[in-house]
Structure formats: C-alpha cells, structure tokens
C-alpha cells in the first residue's frame, strides 16, 4: 500500500494537470460554463420541491422544504455524479492507458476531484439557502468536515471499483445507474429518516449513505448530534471499501491496456 502511495505522490503533478484538464474540457464550449455547477442542483431542487413538498407534502420537521431537500440532495448528487462519471474514467481514455505509463488511479481520482469542485459550489448554494431562510446553526457544524471526509472516502472507493470493473465488463455501464437509483431512493434524500419503519431502520442504516445524509441534516439543520453508531459503521465501511478497492485496482491495473 505504501508503495502505491509513493508512486501516486510522485505523479501528483500529473494528477493536478489531469484534473485541470477535466475541468476545462467539461465546460469548454458551453455557454454558461461553471454556472452549470450551480444550475444543475438548482434545477433538481426545483423539481423535487414540486413533487415532495407540494404534491406529497413530505414532513420536514419544521425546516423550510427547500432547505430540507437540498441538504440531502447536495451530498447525494456529489457521490452519484462522481461515481457515474468515473465509471468511464479509464474506458474513455483508452488511448492514454494504452500508450503511457502512469498510476492508473489518477484517472478516477481526478473525476472525484472535479466532483469536489461541484460539491464546493453546491455547498455554497446550501450556505446561501441557510442564510436566506435564517436557519440558526450551532456548534454541531463542527461535525460536517468529518462527514465530508467519510463521504469522500466512500465515494473514492466506489469510483475506483466501478472504473476498473467497466474495463472488464461492459455491463457495468448499465448496472451503475440502476445501483445509483437504488441508492437515491434507499437514502433519506427526499424524505426524513423518521418515515422509515422502526423495524427496518437497522437494515436501512446499514447503507452508509443513509447514515451520512441523515447526519448532515442533524448537524446543519437541526443542531443536534446524530446517533454515533450508524456513522461509525459508515466510517468503517468506507475505509475498508477504499483499502479493498484500491488493492483490487492496483492488482488488475496491468490488464487495462490489454483489455481495453
């Protein structure tokens, strides 16, 4: 493992250059450029407000619906979009993989970094909403960085796994969106965790994203500390997943150039 980290550290300039490239290429030629990083979550917020706040009247524990929904939507969109785009991180750059030697994990890693830029933009939007609705915040905000780190680790683990899997099995491109839809509905993005029956709550919280999103709501909107057991579970799952998927990635790395 340390050997991998060392070679990755040596290639940090490539990681930087590649991430910059991804950012530039993504918004190159689009009229609104980086504004899309803001418009996209905003559009999803609007439609989810219409359905879940207006049509379905999902209970929001007294918090304005826009705030409640966005607090779940913003972190979920980061993970979901990043996993979706990292699936193609290796596959779409086959020319490079076939012709240059570099730590392959740089490609999925760069999509996570690009996603982190989007996350920063949507976090700013969330802060704007908190300010706009004059939602009081407290010392529980201190837990936010911890939650973000756990989520980054988990997302990176899934990105590494998915990007490598797509090289070997093209079916993965269809499986990923399905799995992400499951994740969306099986996490408390559009509804509070209270609506999940108590009998099923334990199983529900085995999904680390459920614990994380519920955690964000607690510390940002409700000024309460979330239950620690699901979060510790999420942290353990994330770290184990990252170690396992990185190890797997490095083991099959050599076959990418021959397989693509």
């Amino acid at each position, binding site marked *: 493992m340390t050997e991998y980290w060392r070679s990755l550290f040596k290639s940090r300039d490539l990681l930087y250059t590649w991430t910059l490239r991804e950012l530039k290429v993504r918004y190159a030629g689009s009229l609104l450029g980086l504004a899309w990083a803001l418009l996209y979550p905003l559009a999803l917020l609007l439609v989810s407000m219409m359905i879940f706040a207006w049509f379905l009247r999902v209970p929001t524990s007294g918090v304005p619906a826009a705030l409640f929904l966005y607090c779940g939507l913003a972190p979920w969109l980061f993970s979901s979009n990043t996993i979706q785009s990292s699936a193609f991180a290796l596959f779409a750059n086959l020319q490079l993989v076939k012709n240059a*030697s570099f730590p392959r994990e740089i490609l999925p890693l760069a999509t996570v970094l690009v996603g982190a830029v989007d996350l920063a933009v949507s976090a700013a939007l969330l802060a704007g909403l908190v300010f706009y609705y004059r939602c009081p915040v407290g010392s529980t905000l201190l837990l936010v960085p911890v939650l973000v780190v756990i989520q980054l680790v988990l997302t990176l683990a899934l990105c590494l796994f998915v990007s490598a899997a797509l090289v070997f099995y093209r079916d993965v491109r269809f499986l990923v969106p399905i799995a992400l839809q499951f994740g969306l509905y099986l996490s408390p993005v559009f509804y509070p965790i209270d609506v999940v029956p108590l009998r099923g709550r334990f199983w529900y919280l085995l999904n680390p994203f459920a614990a994380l999103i519920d955690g964000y709501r607690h510390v940002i909107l409700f000024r309460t500390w979330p239950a620690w057991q699901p979060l510790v579970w999420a942290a353990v799952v994330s770290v184990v997943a990252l170690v396992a998927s990185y190890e797997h990635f490095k083991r099959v790395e050599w076959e990418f150039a021959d397989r693509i």
Partner: protein
Amino acid sequence: MQMILIQEVSKRYQVGKLTTSLKEAAAGWLSGRQAARWVWALRDVNLSVNAGEAVGIIGHNGAGKSTLLRLLARVSKPTTGRIETKGRMAALLELGAGFHPDLTGRENIFLNGTLLGLTRTEISKRFDEIVAFSEVESFIDTPVKHFSSGMTLRLSFAVAAHLNCDLLLIDEVLAVGDPSFADKCLMRMQHLRDQGMTIVLTSHNLRTVASFCSRALLFRGGCLVADGQPAEIVGLCENSTSRSEAIDPRHGWRARGVGAAG
C-alpha cells in the same frame, strides 16, 4: 552500463471476441472452459541493450515490434519473463496519445510532459525550448484539434526530446512528419545519443534504421530472429521481403549472439 535487460519474455494477447460481458463470463465460468483464443505477440525474447546504443527494430506488421515497446514502456506486463530498465524513460508510442484535442498546445505540453513523468516546474523551465523545437509557436494557444498530424507530431516529439531522460522509446511515429522535420528529429536524437541517451525505435523506414542506428533487431512472428549491424540486418529484411521463407522463426538466424551484444 546495461540499460535494458529482457529475459525470456513472452506476451500473449486475447484475440477475437473479448469476454467483456457478465453473461459470457458467467457462461464460461459455469461450463468451466474458456472460449478465448490467444495469440502470442512475443515469444521468448532475450535481449540486452547498453547505454548509448541506438537500437532499430524492424519487421513486418504484427511481428511484435510495438508489443515489445509497450512492454518496455511499462504500459503492459509480459505474460512470462522479466524486463528491467534503468533510469528515466520517455515513450512516444502513438501519435498524439497524450494530447487532448480541446486543449491548447500550451496546455497539452504540460499534460504530455507530466504524463512522461516531468514536474510542472521542469516543464516550465524547458517550455520555450520545446516550443522553439516544434516550430509551432504561432499556434501554441490554439486547441490541438486544429493541428495537422504533422504539427501534433512536432509537439509530441519536442516534449519527449527535451525530457532529459536516459531512455527514449519511439514507435514509428516519425513517419508522419515532413522530411525536413524528420531530419531535424534524427539530428536531435543524434545529439541526445552523443550525450549518452539510449534510444530504441521501430521503423518501416529501413534507410533510417541503417543510417541512424548502431544496432538493429529483426522480428518475425513475435520472435527475435536477427540481431546485429544495421546494414546487415536491413539487407536481411529486404531479402526476406522477396523470399519470406528465408528465415525460419523457430530456429532463428543470428548475425550476432542474441543477448550478448555490446
């Protein structure tokens, strides 16, 4: 000093339909047999290259030239055997592989340079030199998609040739440039060689190999069949083009002891 050591290297590729769907993988797994067909791109290659040598690899398409370079460049791993290289290495395997069409020439120099293992500071230091060599100054802030293939070659060769590496691998890419730039590249490579760089290139241009290289290797069907003085080997290659049975790849034909060169 020995720069490259290749011991009993073979490389096998899966050909035909790749098993890239879960269904096929499951079917293959259940029936307990692999439907894959394999082809040996390289067979039992032994070779050692010393510092300062300029090695030209010749052979027909599919002879294993590019595979050998890919293995040397550490893009892929040999199926059996061992490869060792010393020092810093730069590889030009496919034209424009490290370039992105939407980025400008300037941005691509940094992308390409970092891909070859340079830091951004090192690239900044050599930036002017690279641009001057490539002769594409006036297009340096134009997206590379507007470049001709010759211009792309100029830029990618310029980056690789200003790396200060110890080992340069070039796969056939020089064929794209115009003759005057090809000459310039050869002169630059000669200069790098004089400074002690080791160069391995593949080419279909036998004249280039004969005039530039200090040693030539002839590949046929994945086997190294001849190794020796460029003039001799090139002659052999030209002869064998007319009489393709001249060399039996199984037994090999050696102008000089393979592996004991230098």
